[in-house]
Protein backbone atom coordinates (compact mmCIF):
# COMPACT_ATOMS: atom_id res chain seq x y z
CA UNK A 1 0.00 0.00 0.00
CA UNK A 2 2.89 2.32 0.66
CA UNK A 3 3.61 2.48 -3.06
CA UNK A 4 0.06 3.54 -3.86
CA UNK A 5 0.10 6.18 -1.14
CA UNK A 6 3.34 7.51 -2.60
CA UNK A 7 1.83 7.52 -6.06
CA UNK A 8 -1.10 9.66 -4.88
CA UNK A 9 1.33 11.95 -3.07
CA UNK A 10 3.32 12.23 -6.30
CA UNK A 11 0.18 13.48 -8.03
CA UNK A 12 -0.35 16.09 -5.29
CA UNK A 13 3.19 17.39 -5.62
CA UNK A 14 2.93 17.12 -9.39
CA UNK A 15 -0.22 19.24 -9.40
CA UNK A 16 1.47 21.92 -7.28
CA UNK A 17 4.55 22.02 -9.47
CA UNK A 18 2.59 22.03 -12.72
CA UNK A 19 0.42 24.87 -11.42
CA UNK A 20 3.61 26.78 -10.63
CA UNK A 21 4.88 26.03 -14.13
CA UNK A 22 1.65 27.27 -15.71
CA UNK A 23 1.86 30.60 -13.89
CA UNK A 24 5.54 30.90 -14.69
CA UNK A 25 4.90 30.29 -18.39
CA UNK A 26 2.23 32.99 -18.30
CA UNK A 27 4.73 35.68 -17.23
CA UNK A 28 7.07 37.71 -19.40
CA UNK A 29 9.59 37.89 -16.60
CA UNK A 30 10.59 35.45 -13.88
CA UNK A 31 13.40 35.98 -11.33
CA UNK A 32 16.74 34.23 -11.93
CA UNK A 33 17.25 31.74 -9.05
CA UNK A 34 20.95 32.65 -8.99
CA UNK A 35 19.91 36.15 -7.91
CA UNK A 36 17.30 35.04 -5.36
CA UNK A 37 19.23 32.26 -3.64
CA UNK A 38 22.71 33.69 -3.17
CA UNK A 39 23.08 33.89 0.62
CA UNK A 40 25.00 31.59 2.93
CA UNK A 41 24.82 31.55 6.76
CA UNK A 42 27.60 33.63 8.22
CA UNK A 43 28.75 34.98 4.84
CA UNK A 44 26.94 38.32 5.10
CA UNK A 45 26.31 39.95 1.73
CA UNK A 46 28.80 37.81 -0.19
CA UNK A 47 27.23 36.73 -3.47
CA UNK A 48 27.21 32.91 -3.41
CA UNK A 49 24.56 31.72 -5.90
CA UNK A 50 23.11 28.27 -5.16
CA UNK A 51 25.82 27.46 -2.58
CA UNK A 52 23.51 26.92 0.38
CA UNK A 53 20.95 24.90 -1.52
CA UNK A 54 23.80 22.63 -2.70
CA UNK A 55 24.52 21.90 0.94
CA UNK A 56 20.83 21.15 1.58
CA UNK A 57 20.69 18.84 -1.44
CA UNK A 58 23.84 17.04 -0.34
CA UNK A 59 22.39 16.52 3.16
CA UNK A 60 19.22 15.00 1.71
CA UNK A 61 21.04 12.64 -0.70
CA UNK A 62 23.34 11.59 2.13
CA UNK A 63 20.40 10.83 4.43
CA UNK A 64 18.84 8.78 1.64
CA UNK A 65 22.01 6.68 1.53
CA UNK A 66 22.07 6.15 5.29
CA UNK A 67 18.41 5.07 5.03
CA UNK A 68 19.23 2.41 2.39
CA UNK A 69 22.05 1.21 4.59
CA UNK A 70 19.59 0.91 7.52
CA UNK A 71 17.24 -1.16 5.33
CA UNK A 72 20.21 -3.25 4.23
CA UNK A 73 21.20 -3.99 7.86
CA UNK A 74 17.54 -4.83 8.50
CA UNK A 75 17.71 -7.59 5.87
CA UNK A 76 20.62 -9.01 7.81
CA UNK A 77 18.62 -8.63 11.07
CA UNK A 78 21.47 -6.61 12.53
CA UNK A 79 19.74 -4.51 15.17
CA UNK A 80 22.75 -2.34 16.06
CA UNK A 81 23.43 -1.64 12.40
CA UNK A 82 19.82 -0.56 11.84
CA UNK A 83 19.93 1.70 14.90
CA UNK A 84 23.17 3.33 13.81
CA UNK A 85 22.01 4.15 10.29
CA UNK A 86 18.52 5.22 11.40
CA UNK A 87 20.12 7.67 13.81
CA UNK A 88 22.21 9.18 11.00
CA UNK A 89 19.13 9.41 8.77
CA UNK A 90 17.22 11.25 11.51
CA UNK A 91 20.11 13.67 12.03
CA UNK A 92 20.24 14.32 8.29
CA UNK A 93 16.51 15.09 8.25
CA UNK A 94 16.81 17.49 11.18
CA UNK A 95 19.81 19.20 9.57
CA UNK A 96 17.83 19.71 6.37
CA UNK A 97 14.90 21.23 8.29
CA UNK A 98 17.22 23.62 10.13
CA UNK A 99 18.74 24.71 6.81
CA UNK A 100 15.28 25.35 5.42
CA UNK A 101 14.30 27.35 8.51
CA UNK A 102 17.36 29.56 8.01
CA UNK A 103 16.65 29.97 4.30
CA UNK A 104 13.03 31.01 4.87
CA UNK A 105 13.98 33.39 7.66
CA UNK A 106 16.61 34.98 5.47
CA UNK A 107 14.26 35.40 2.52
CA UNK A 108 11.43 36.87 4.59
CA UNK A 109 13.43 39.25 6.77
CA UNK A 110 16.16 40.28 4.31
CA UNK A 111 14.95 43.54 2.77
CA UNK A 112 15.88 44.72 -0.72
CA UNK A 113 15.46 48.07 -2.43
CA UNK A 114 12.68 48.07 -5.04
CA UNK A 115 11.11 50.75 -7.19
CA UNK A 116 7.53 51.40 -6.03
CA UNK A 117 4.89 53.27 -8.01
CA UNK A 118 7.58 54.07 -10.57
CA UNK A 119 9.01 56.99 -8.62
CA UNK A 120 10.17 56.03 -5.12
CA UNK A 121 12.12 53.30 -3.40
CA UNK A 122 10.82 50.83 -0.83
CA UNK A 123 12.58 48.11 1.14
CA UNK A 124 10.76 44.77 0.94
CA UNK A 125 11.54 41.13 1.76
CA UNK A 126 10.55 37.99 -0.14
CA UNK A 127 7.09 37.30 1.29
CA UNK A 128 3.72 36.01 0.07
CA UNK A 129 2.72 39.56 -0.81
CA UNK A 130 5.87 40.98 -2.34
CA UNK A 131 8.78 39.99 -4.52
CA UNK A 132 11.91 42.14 -4.68
CA UNK A 133 13.52 40.28 -7.62
CA UNK A 134 12.27 42.20 -10.65
CA UNK A 135 14.42 43.73 -13.35
CA UNK A 136 17.28 46.11 -12.65
CA UNK A 137 16.25 49.75 -12.72
CA UNK A 138 18.12 52.24 -14.94
CA UNK A 139 20.59 54.55 -13.22
CA UNK A 140 18.69 57.72 -14.13
CA UNK A 141 15.36 56.36 -12.82
CA UNK A 142 17.07 55.19 -9.62
CA UNK A 143 18.68 58.62 -9.00
CA UNK A 144 15.31 60.31 -9.40
CA UNK A 145 13.56 57.75 -7.18
CA UNK A 146 16.06 58.29 -4.34
CA UNK A 147 14.88 61.89 -4.01
CA UNK A 148 11.26 60.76 -3.47
CA UNK A 149 12.11 58.10 -0.90
CA UNK A 150 11.56 58.38 2.83
CA UNK A 151 14.42 58.84 5.31
CA UNK A 152 13.70 55.39 6.79
CA UNK A 153 14.24 53.72 3.42
CA UNK A 154 17.39 55.73 2.70
CA UNK A 155 18.76 54.95 6.16
CA UNK A 156 18.21 51.22 5.61
CA UNK A 157 19.91 51.42 2.19
CA UNK A 158 22.96 53.12 3.70
CA UNK A 159 23.04 50.62 6.56
CA UNK A 160 23.08 47.75 3.99
CA UNK A 161 26.60 48.75 2.97
CA UNK A 162 27.77 50.40 6.20
CA UNK A 163 26.83 48.01 8.99
CA UNK A 164 28.69 50.10 11.56
CA UNK A 165 26.17 52.94 11.17
CA UNK A 166 22.91 52.23 13.04
CA UNK A 167 19.64 52.86 11.20
CA UNK A 168 18.29 54.77 14.24
CA UNK A 169 21.13 57.32 13.95
CA UNK A 170 21.06 57.52 10.16
CA UNK A 171 17.36 58.41 10.08
CA UNK A 172 18.13 61.70 11.85
CA UNK A 173 20.52 62.85 9.10
CA UNK A 174 19.25 65.11 6.30
CA UNK A 175 18.07 63.22 3.20
CA UNK A 176 20.67 64.83 0.91
CA UNK A 177 23.46 63.50 3.10
CA UNK A 178 21.95 59.99 3.08
CA UNK A 179 21.57 60.06 -0.72
CA UNK A 180 25.22 61.12 -0.97
CA UNK A 181 26.22 58.03 1.01
CA UNK A 182 24.44 55.64 -1.37
CA UNK A 183 26.57 54.31 -4.19
CA UNK A 184 24.19 53.30 -6.98
CA UNK A 185 26.94 51.31 -8.71
CA UNK A 186 26.98 48.76 -5.90
CA UNK A 187 23.31 49.00 -4.85
CA UNK A 188 20.96 46.98 -7.00
CA UNK A 189 17.53 48.56 -7.30
CA UNK A 190 14.98 46.37 -9.00
CA UNK A 191 11.36 46.59 -9.97
CA UNK A 192 8.94 44.35 -8.06
CA UNK A 193 8.90 40.81 -9.44
CA UNK A 194 5.93 38.48 -9.95
CA UNK A 195 3.99 38.19 -6.67
CA UNK A 196 3.07 34.54 -7.37
CA UNK A 197 6.70 33.55 -6.75
CA UNK A 198 6.36 33.78 -2.95
CA UNK A 199 3.17 31.77 -2.65
CA UNK A 200 4.50 28.97 -4.82
CA UNK A 201 7.96 28.91 -3.27
CA UNK A 202 6.81 28.90 0.36
CA UNK A 203 3.82 26.68 -0.42
CA UNK A 204 5.73 23.96 -2.23
CA UNK A 205 8.98 23.99 -0.24
CA UNK A 206 6.80 24.18 2.89
CA UNK A 207 4.76 21.15 1.83
CA UNK A 208 8.00 19.31 1.11
CA UNK A 209 9.45 20.45 4.46
CA UNK A 210 6.33 19.10 6.15
CA UNK A 211 6.99 15.74 4.49
CA UNK A 212 10.58 15.81 5.74
CA UNK A 213 9.27 16.62 9.22
CA UNK A 214 6.78 13.76 9.26
CA UNK A 215 9.51 11.49 7.82
CA UNK A 216 11.75 12.39 10.74
CA UNK A 217 8.92 11.57 13.18
CA UNK A 218 8.32 8.20 11.47
CA UNK A 219 12.04 7.45 11.56
CA UNK A 220 12.25 8.32 15.26
CA UNK A 221 9.38 5.90 15.96
CA UNK A 222 11.20 3.23 13.90
CA UNK A 223 14.41 3.85 15.82
CA UNK A 224 12.62 3.47 19.16
CA UNK A 225 10.91 0.27 17.99
CA UNK A 226 14.21 -1.14 16.73
CA UNK A 227 15.94 -0.23 19.99
CA UNK A 228 13.25 -2.01 21.99
CA UNK A 229 13.73 -5.13 19.88
CA UNK A 230 10.21 -5.09 18.39
CA UNK A 231 11.49 -6.11 14.95
CA UNK A 232 13.68 -8.85 16.36
CA UNK A 233 10.59 -10.36 18.02
CA UNK A 234 8.65 -10.06 14.77
CA UNK A 235 11.50 -11.75 12.97
CA UNK A 236 11.81 -9.15 10.21
CA UNK A 237 12.53 -5.47 9.62
CA UNK A 238 9.87 -4.76 7.01
CA UNK A 239 8.65 -1.66 8.85
CA UNK A 240 12.06 -0.09 8.31
CA UNK A 241 11.70 -0.89 4.64
CA UNK A 242 8.37 0.98 4.44
CA UNK A 243 9.69 3.97 6.34
CA UNK A 244 12.60 3.88 3.90
CA UNK A 245 10.27 4.04 0.90
CA UNK A 246 8.65 7.15 2.35
CA UNK A 247 12.02 8.74 3.10
CA UNK A 248 13.33 8.13 -0.44
CA UNK A 249 10.14 9.59 -1.82
CA UNK A 250 10.83 12.79 0.11
CA UNK A 251 14.29 12.85 -1.48
CA UNK A 252 12.74 12.17 -4.89
CA UNK A 253 10.35 15.10 -4.53
CA UNK A 254 13.28 17.33 -3.60
CA UNK A 255 14.94 16.44 -6.91
CA UNK A 256 12.00 18.11 -8.66
CA UNK A 257 11.53 20.99 -6.21
CA UNK A 258 15.26 21.69 -6.57
CA UNK A 259 14.92 21.53 -10.34
CA UNK A 260 11.88 23.82 -10.60
CA UNK A 261 12.83 26.50 -8.08
CA UNK A 262 16.62 26.58 -7.97
CA UNK A 263 18.04 25.29 -11.24
CA UNK A 264 15.86 26.43 -14.13
Amino acid at each position, binding site marked *: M*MWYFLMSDAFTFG*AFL*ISYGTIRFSQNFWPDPNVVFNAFPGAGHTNLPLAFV*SVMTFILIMSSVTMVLAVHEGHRSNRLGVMKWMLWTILGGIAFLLCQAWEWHHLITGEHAVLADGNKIEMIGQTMGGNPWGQLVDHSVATEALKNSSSEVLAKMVNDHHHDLAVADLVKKPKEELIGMINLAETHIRTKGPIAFGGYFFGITGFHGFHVFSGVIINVVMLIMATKGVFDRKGHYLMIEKAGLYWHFVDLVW*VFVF*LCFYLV
Partner: protein
Amino acid sequence: MSMEHQTISEVTFHHHVPGEDNVKRIWRTFWLLLVITVIELGMGFSIYFIHKNPDFSHGLVLGIKGAIVILSLAKAFYIVSIFMHLGDEIRNMVMTIAVPLMLFIWFIAAFLWDGNSYKNLRNKYDKHFEERTTEQKGGGGH
Protein backbone atom coordinates in the same frame (compact mmCIF):
# COMPACT_ATOMS: atom_id res chain seq x y z
CA MET B 1 13.21 -13.96 4.66
CA SER B 2 10.60 -16.56 3.95
CA MET B 3 6.94 -17.48 3.91
CA GLU B 4 6.08 -14.77 6.36
CA HIS B 5 7.32 -12.21 3.88
CA GLN B 6 5.14 -13.47 1.09
CA THR B 7 1.92 -12.87 2.97
CA ILE B 8 2.38 -9.44 4.53
CA SER B 9 5.11 -8.02 2.42
CA GLU B 10 5.18 -4.61 0.78
CA VAL B 11 7.92 -5.97 -1.44
CA THR B 12 6.97 -8.32 -4.21
CA PHE B 13 10.39 -9.85 -4.81
CA HIS B 14 12.40 -12.33 -2.84
CA HIS B 15 15.35 -10.93 -0.95
CA HIS B 16 18.57 -12.82 -1.16
CA VAL B 17 20.54 -12.40 2.00
CA PRO B 18 22.35 -9.27 0.87
CA GLY B 19 26.05 -8.88 1.23
CA GLU B 20 28.82 -6.57 0.26
CA ASP B 21 27.57 -6.41 -3.34
CA ASN B 22 24.45 -4.57 -2.25
CA VAL B 23 26.42 -2.05 -0.17
CA LYS B 24 28.70 -1.42 -3.12
CA ARG B 25 25.71 -0.79 -5.36
CA ILE B 26 24.28 1.70 -2.84
CA TRP B 27 27.49 3.70 -2.69
CA ARG B 28 27.94 3.57 -6.44
CA THR B 29 24.45 5.06 -6.80
CA PHE B 30 25.26 7.71 -4.22
CA TRP B 31 28.35 8.86 -6.14
CA LEU B 32 26.39 8.86 -9.36
CA LEU B 33 23.65 11.06 -7.83
CA LEU B 34 26.26 13.37 -6.35
CA VAL B 35 28.12 13.77 -9.64
CA ILE B 36 24.87 14.46 -11.53
CA THR B 37 23.88 17.04 -8.90
CA VAL B 38 27.23 18.81 -9.16
CA ILE B 39 26.92 18.92 -12.96
CA GLU B 40 23.39 20.31 -12.62
CA LEU B 41 24.55 22.99 -10.23
CA GLY B 42 27.38 23.93 -12.55
CA MET B 43 24.96 24.26 -15.45
CA GLY B 44 22.43 26.25 -13.37
CA PHE B 45 25.23 28.52 -12.22
CA SER B 46 26.45 29.03 -15.80
CA ILE B 47 23.08 30.63 -16.66
CA TYR B 48 23.97 33.36 -14.16
CA PHE B 49 27.02 34.31 -16.24
CA ILE B 50 25.21 33.99 -19.55
CA HIS B 51 22.58 36.42 -18.21
CA LYS B 52 25.29 38.99 -17.51
CA ASN B 53 25.75 39.48 -21.22
CA PRO B 54 22.97 41.88 -22.33
CA ASP B 55 22.33 40.09 -25.64
CA PHE B 56 22.68 36.49 -24.53
CA SER B 57 21.32 33.63 -26.58
CA HIS B 58 17.88 32.53 -25.33
CA GLY B 59 18.29 29.28 -27.25
CA LEU B 60 21.46 28.43 -25.32
CA VAL B 61 19.78 29.09 -21.95
CA LEU B 62 16.81 26.96 -23.01
CA GLY B 63 19.17 24.17 -24.10
CA ILE B 64 21.00 24.22 -20.75
CA LYS B 65 17.70 24.15 -18.87
CA GLY B 66 16.51 21.23 -21.00
CA ALA B 67 19.69 19.30 -20.23
CA ILE B 68 19.21 19.96 -16.50
CA VAL B 69 15.66 18.58 -16.71
CA ILE B 70 16.94 15.41 -18.39
CA LEU B 71 19.65 14.97 -15.74
CA SER B 72 17.00 15.38 -13.00
CA LEU B 73 14.90 12.66 -14.60
CA ALA B 74 17.97 10.41 -14.57
CA LYS B 75 18.39 11.13 -10.85
CA ALA B 76 14.73 10.31 -10.22
CA PHE B 77 15.18 7.02 -12.10
CA TYR B 78 18.16 5.98 -9.97
CA ILE B 79 16.44 6.91 -6.68
CA VAL B 80 13.31 4.98 -7.58
CA SER B 81 14.93 1.93 -9.12
CA ILE B 82 17.92 1.46 -6.77
CA PHE B 83 17.13 3.16 -3.45
CA MET B 84 13.43 2.32 -3.54
CA HIS B 85 14.32 -0.88 -5.46
CA LEU B 86 11.26 -0.62 -7.68
CA GLY B 87 13.52 -2.05 -10.39
CA ASP B 88 13.61 -5.35 -8.48
CA GLU B 89 9.84 -5.69 -8.01
CA ILE B 90 7.74 -7.95 -10.22
CA ARG B 91 6.75 -6.45 -13.53
CA ASN B 92 3.02 -6.12 -12.90
CA MET B 93 3.61 -4.23 -9.68
CA VAL B 94 5.97 -1.85 -11.48
CA MET B 95 3.37 -1.28 -14.17
CA THR B 96 0.57 -0.38 -11.70
CA ILE B 97 2.83 2.41 -10.47
CA ALA B 98 4.45 3.52 -13.71
CA VAL B 99 1.42 3.56 -16.03
CA PRO B 100 -0.71 6.07 -14.03
CA LEU B 101 2.34 8.32 -13.75
CA MET B 102 2.40 8.50 -17.55
CA LEU B 103 -0.49 10.96 -17.17
CA PHE B 104 2.12 13.49 -16.13
CA ILE B 105 3.39 13.71 -19.71
CA TRP B 106 0.02 15.04 -20.79
CA PHE B 107 -0.47 17.18 -17.64
CA ILE B 108 2.83 18.96 -18.09
CA ALA B 109 2.49 19.54 -21.83
CA ALA B 110 -1.12 20.75 -21.60
CA PHE B 111 -0.71 23.11 -18.65
CA LEU B 112 2.53 24.71 -19.77
CA TRP B 113 1.01 25.19 -23.20
CA ASP B 114 -1.97 26.84 -21.54
CA GLY B 115 0.20 29.20 -19.48
CA ASN B 116 2.18 30.17 -22.55
CA SER B 117 -0.95 30.81 -24.58
CA TYR B 118 -2.35 33.02 -21.80
CA LYS B 119 0.86 35.06 -21.87
CA ASN B 120 0.70 35.52 -25.64
CA LEU B 121 -2.95 36.59 -25.56
CA ARG B 122 -2.27 39.02 -22.74
CA ASN B 123 0.69 40.56 -24.55
CA LYS B 124 -1.45 40.94 -27.65
CA TYR B 125 -4.46 42.59 -26.03
CA ASP B 126 -2.93 44.27 -22.94
CA LYS B 127 -0.03 46.39 -24.18
CA HIS B 128 0.41 47.92 -20.74
CA PHE B 129 1.12 44.46 -19.27
CA GLU B 130 3.67 43.80 -22.01
CA GLU B 131 5.51 47.11 -21.50
CA ARG B 132 5.51 46.75 -17.73
CA THR B 133 6.90 43.22 -17.60
CA THR B 134 9.07 42.70 -20.67
CA GLU B 135 12.78 42.92 -20.15
CA GLN B 136 14.04 46.34 -21.15
CA LYS B 137 16.90 46.59 -23.62
CA GLY B 138 20.03 47.98 -22.02
CA GLY B 139 18.49 47.68 -18.57
CA GLY B 140 21.36 45.42 -17.59
CA GLY B 141 19.29 42.24 -17.59
CA HIS B 142 19.93 40.51 -14.31
